[in-house]
Each structure stands twice: as C-alpha cells, then as structure tokens.
C-alpha cells in the first residue's frame, strides 16, 4: 500500500476493505457476543440448579432432623433424578444414611455410603464415605467386606483413622493381636487430629499388655 494517499483515497481504501471483510467482522462479533451470552446463560443456569438443589437438600436435612424417613427419602430421590451433578446429592446421602443408622438399619446406611464411594467426584468425601461404610458394615456383621473397604492404599491423610477402624473390625472377629497392631499403627501416625488419640489409646490399653511386654512403663510424673 502507498503511504501517501490523499484523504479521499484513504476513505476509499477503508470502504474497499470493509466491502471485502465487513461480513466477516460482523460475523465474528455476532459469534463472540453469542458465545458470551451463551456462556453467561450456562453459568446462571448452573447456579440456579445448584441453588434449587441446595433447597431440596435443606428439606432433606430438616426431615432427617425430625426422623421423617419418608420425606427424607423422597427428597433424596428428587436430588438423584434432577440434581445428580450437584454436590448436594452426596451430602443428601450422608444425611439420609445417618437417619438409617439412628433407626438401626445398617444395611440401608451402607448402601448409601457405597453409592457415594462409587459415584462422588470429591475424592476426600469418598474417603470419609469409605470409613463410614466400613463402620456400618461392621454394625451389620459384615466384617470381611468392611475390611476390604478400608484398603490402606486408599487411606491418604486418613491413615490413622483407617487403622483405628480396622482395629475395631479385627477385634470384633476376635483377632486381638492384629487389632493391637492396627491401634498401635494408628497412634504412630502424625498427631494432626484425624483420630481421637486418647480414645484409641484407651482401646489399645483395654486389650491388656501384649505377651512378652513389660507391663510397667511409667509415664509422666506422679
């Protein structure tokens, strides 16, 4: 292009450019704006869905507080059918499972936890569900499955708690030595609040001194 065009020629050049490319520019703008609108719409839609799911979850919590199993189960079904992509489904299951536990229906509680373990995309919530699953399976006299659920390679930061519950399970099967080992390992973990150390120590102490160990180990000052 020439650097020394007259004003008229410049205007003509711009006109020509626009004639050639105007359609594309407008198409680009339309595309951009509609993309943006669509994006915003999608975001708002997601927020609205989440808020609606949260409302159903609140109803479930209230029903569970009143021990109203029918209503709580109905709310969970709504979450499951309409809001399965929100975190409120898994939270709802936790709450419903607690209601089952308080009614002594451990298999039903275990079902909920099992579903969370297989479906949630929140990895830490999955670990919590695993621990609760194992405890309810133990209460339902399914100690073999309970032990399988607490696969130590999946324990992560929950290691000491996995060991503690494994200890509980093993003890219920009469495997005192193995249980003592699990409690000991639970206490060897970091002191970061994942277990109630005093409670685990009590469980360990209650098993009595291991054979061959000295039973007198004074700690602290008299």
């Amino acid at each position: 292009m020439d650097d020394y065009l007259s004003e008229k020629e410049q205007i003509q050049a711009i006109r020509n450019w626009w004639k050639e490319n105007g359609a594309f520019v407008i198409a680009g703008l339309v595309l951009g704006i509609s993309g943006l609108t669509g994006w915003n719409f999608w975001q708002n839609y997601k927020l609205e869905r989440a808020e609606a799911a949260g409302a159903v979850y609140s109803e479930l919590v209230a029903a569970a507080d009143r021990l109203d199993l029918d209503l709580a189960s109905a709310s969970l079904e709504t979450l499951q059918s309409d809001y399965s992509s929100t975190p409120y489904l898994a939270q709802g299951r936790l709450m419903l499972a607690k209601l089952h536990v308080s009614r002594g229906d451990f298999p039903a509680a275990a079902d909920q936890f099992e579903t969370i373990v297989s479906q949630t995309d929140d990895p830490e919530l999955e670990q919590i569900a695993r621990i609760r699953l194992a405890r309810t399976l133990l209460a339902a006299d399914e100690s073999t499955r309970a032990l399988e659920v607490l696969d130590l390679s999946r324990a992560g930061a929950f290691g000491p708690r996995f060991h503690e519950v494994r200890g509980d399970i093993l003890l219920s099967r009469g495997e005192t030595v193995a249980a003592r080992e699990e409690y000991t390992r639970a206490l060897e973990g970091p002191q970061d609040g994942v277990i109630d150390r005093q409670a685990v120590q009590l469980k360990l102490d209650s098993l009595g001194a291991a054979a061959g160990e000295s039973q007198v180990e004074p700690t602290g000052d008299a």
Partner: protein
Amino acid sequence: MLQKIREKITGWVAGVILALLAFVFAVWGIDIGFSNQSVAAVVNGDKLPIAPVRQAIQNQMSQLQQAYGAEVPEVLEVQVRDSVIEGFIRNRLLVQRIREEGYRVSDEAVSAGIREMPVFQVNGQFSIDAYRAMLANVGYSPTSFEAEQRQNLQIAQLQDGILDSAFVTPAELERRVRIADEKRATAWLTVPVSAYLDSIDIADDAVAEEYEANADRYMSPESVDISYLEVNLAEIASGVSMTEQDLRDFYDSEVVRDPEMFSTPEQRRTRHILVAVDDNRDEEAALARAQSLLDRVRGGEDFSQVASEASDDTGSASLGGDLDWLEPGMMDGPFEEVLFTMDEGEISEPVRTPFGYHIILLEGIRPGDVREFDEARADLESEYRSRMSEDAFYERAERMSELTFENPDTLRPAAEELGLQIGVIEKMTRGGGSGLAANSEVLSAAFSEDVLKNGENSQPLEIGEGRAVVLRVDQHHEPQPRPLAEVSEEIRDRLQREAARSQVLATGEEALALVKAGGDLESVADQVSAEFSPPLLAGRDDATVPVRIREAVFAASLDADSEAGGLALADGSYAVWVLTDIVPGSLESLSADNQAELRARLAGASGGAELTGYINQLRNDATVVVNTEQFE
C-alpha cells in the same frame, strides 16, 4: 512487520481474531496480567493477596502483646505467623473445592445471614445505614463483603454436611463406655523414703568427697555489683513549689486553652419519638406518620404515652421516650442542632437523622456553668504540678542521658550536676532480685556486652512510667566455688536421699518378689514395714490412687504374670500394687440424658476428625508456595 499484519488481516482471519478478543475481554474483563500486587502465597495457582494476611497476623500479635504485657518472644511470633498463613491457605483450598464441586448459597440466604449479624443491628433491627457505615469503616464494599459472606456460607455448608451427618454406632458407644468407665480393684503398699532418711548417717568424709568430686554443683552464681542514677517523676512532682500568682496565671491561660476543663456544659432534658426509615417504611411514609404523631401530641395527647406506644426506638419507648439529660456531642448532628435551639416545653417539627424522623420534646434546661479560680483550685494545683514536673522530668532525663554518654566511665558528673544520689545494688545475679533488680530491662542492660565487658554506662532505661535509670557495673563476680561449710548441709541432704532411695528400692523389690510369689499384700507390708493401702475400686480418673500406680494398674491384665507390679514414685518412695478385679463400665448405668450427651459428643468428635482429615488431604495434595520473604 506491521505492514504484513495489516495485509493479512483480511477475510475470516480478522473475524476470528476479533471474535476471540471480544470473548476474552467480555468474560475475564481487562485485568488480565494486571494483578501484580504482593502475594502471601500461591495455592494451586491462586494468588493470596498479602494485605489481609498481614492484618490477621497483626491482630493476633496485638492480642498476644496484651496477654504478655510486653515483648512477645520471637518463637511465638513465628508460630503465630505460620499458623495464620496456614489458615489462609486452608481456607483458600476449601474455596477452590466448593467452586469445583458447585456448592451454591442463594442471595436470600446470604442477605439473611448478614441481617442476623449483631454488628449491623440498631435497636435489634438490621440497619442499612449501620451496615454501610460499618463496611466503609473497615474498607469493604458491600459487593465484596457479600461475596465473602457467600463464600463462608458455602464452606460452612460443606463442613456442616460432614459434621452433622456423623454418627456413632451402638456397638461403638457400648464399647466406649465399657472401656472408659471401667473400674479396677487394686491395693498397694508404699515403702516411704522418709522412713529411711533419718536412719542414714553421712560421714563428714563422704561430704568432703562429694564436694570435691562434683565441684560444679556447688558454685555461687555469677553476679555483678552495679551503681545507678535514677530520675523519678514522682520525686520531682513532690518537689514542685508554686505561688498564688503562678496558679492565677495558670488559670488564666488554661481557661482560654481548654475551656471544657473549667466549665460544665448546658444539659437539656429530652424526650423523643422515632419513626424509623427502613426497608418496611420509605421516606414518604415515615414523614407522613411522623406528621400525624406530631399532630397528636400537639393536639394535647400525652407525649410519653404516644412515645411508648409508637416510637421505633424501643430502648427509650419503654421510658415514654425519655433520653435523660443530654449534653452537646451526645446526639446526631441534626437532632442536636434542633434540640439546642428549642425553648423549654417546645415540641419540634420532625427532624431527619440517619435513623429516621424524630419528634423532640424539650422538658427542661440546666444552664452551663464556668468554674471560677477558687472552685477549680484543687484541680489547678494538681494539673500545674504534673505539667511542671513532667517538663522537668524529661529535661533531667535528657540531661542525664547526655552526661552519662559523654562520660562513659563514670556516673559522677551526671550525679553532681543533677544533684542525684548514686544508688548501689550488690551481687545482682542474672536471675534478678527485688526492686530494680527485678526489672528485666535492668538485668539485660547490666549483663550486656557494652556494660559488663566494656565497662561503659548503660543506655538510659525506661523503668515503667516516669522512671529513667542509667547504670554501670562496678564489679563482676564470676561463679565461685561456695565454701564447704556453707554447702555441707545441702550435700548431706543429697547423699542421704540417694542412700535412702537405694535402700527403699532394695526393700521394695524384695516386697514385690514376695507378692509375686503369692504373698498376701498386707502381710508383706507388715513384714517390710511398708504402708499398706487397703483394696479399693477406682476409675481411670480416680485421684485417690496415685497417678503412677493408677496408670500401671490400668495397663495391667488379670493373669498371673501381670496382676502385680512395682514402681518408683517421684519422691523416691517405692510402691507395689496388685490388681484383683476389673469391672467394665455399662451403658445401662448411665441416665438417658447422659447417654444422649455421650452419643452426641462421640459423633461430634468423629465428624470433627473426618473434617480435619478432609482438609489435611486437600492440603497434602495442594501445590503451595509461601512467599516467605514478605514476612521476614
């Protein structure tokens, strides 16, 4: 280059580029790459701005400072800093998690949460004015505050979901009670160290031997003799003299300088009726209502009657609108302006303040008053005295500082010029003593390099309010062996105790062997002249059993090998215990209330531990870089 680009920007390329640009700017705004402020840490790619972190650290530090009353130790400072930063990191991790997972709290819930916060309430009602003012005060915009509240509520939703759904199974509860409330039957004997002490004679030779062998145990502590000068505000104050004329001149200048000190302000007895302007009532409606109330009281209805029935200021409404005596400066601007131009008995037109419309009744006036010289005399004297003595104090402290700095080897010139006595403290140890020697500033100055090693005068030290001290060390006493005569009692005691301990141990082990061989505890106790404690049933926290014995008994089990044991107590006595029975705790022995309470407590602990694990796991998996330089 540009030329080329211009040529290429044709056709669909131009369209696509423009579309992309429009999209990017519209979605992310124009602050891309613009946030270059300091960061405290980067958490999974998110930058944490430093200002709030610093603020939080500062808040905690000032609380600590109040608790300590002085300098906070550096170790503690580092701990506080690290834990605050860690808290921010964990909070950010939770924020990221709620976004990924899609937790969402509605606008209504956010605003309901804010409305319930007591700080934003006036007379028990949410006040939008108070809300705005409070936020402006701490530098928040309502938008950012609401966003933060929403975040907090969403995090709470995640956390409460875990906590509130926690449970304890019946078997877990039962086992817990069985173990924790377990009682054990035990008896024990004690071979007391005291019974052996008196019978042990320590020969002088042994004392001398110990003195030689462990000389370092028997040294006098390092100490210094110091001399010091003190300028004391209280002393100066008691020496201030003043004439009648001084006081009168002082009065004349002070009345001009600080009239409030010599006058009592005018007071006005006030009642009011408030018609609030808030979400339920707009400006116009409020004014109309105020006007109609005004008509009623002007029309002869009793003001206090109307106030107690209609005023929105619930506090004063119950008192018939009474606000007691008001002085200038106690009320809002417009309210006050009107009140202090009213006549006694007058009722005002509606007055607009941030709270709404007020109708004011002025019931009475107490005129202000100016105190004459004679009335104010006592105050004047003390004010004059403190003013004069403070000036003199700073002047003299300053001069002392100069003179002791110019003559670092002696306090004498300063003492002479200022007419001060040189005080002396002898044999002051690093541990301190009483009076000045108890002061940590004094101690650290006396044992500092400049003063102790180089023999210089110290810096001026501020010893509390109104006391300045300069000190120097006259003599430094290194640790010295204490003379044998002085420490021989101490040595004898120590040796006696050591000997007694080994005798006690021998006797105790003999007793343990007898018990283990099947001997009855009480007769064994008789046999070795030990004290016998008869059998009792004790829980884990039962203080009637000495703690070490209790621990041993609860760690034992009911088999031949471990139902008896022996141990040394802290004072050197020896105990032999036997375990005779174990009684498990039972759930049935707890009341229904206690059972429910325990169930809730165990479920809570279990949920709390799970939540901790949740956050710890997030933390372990996160990529976190703390910008430590920012906190040096």
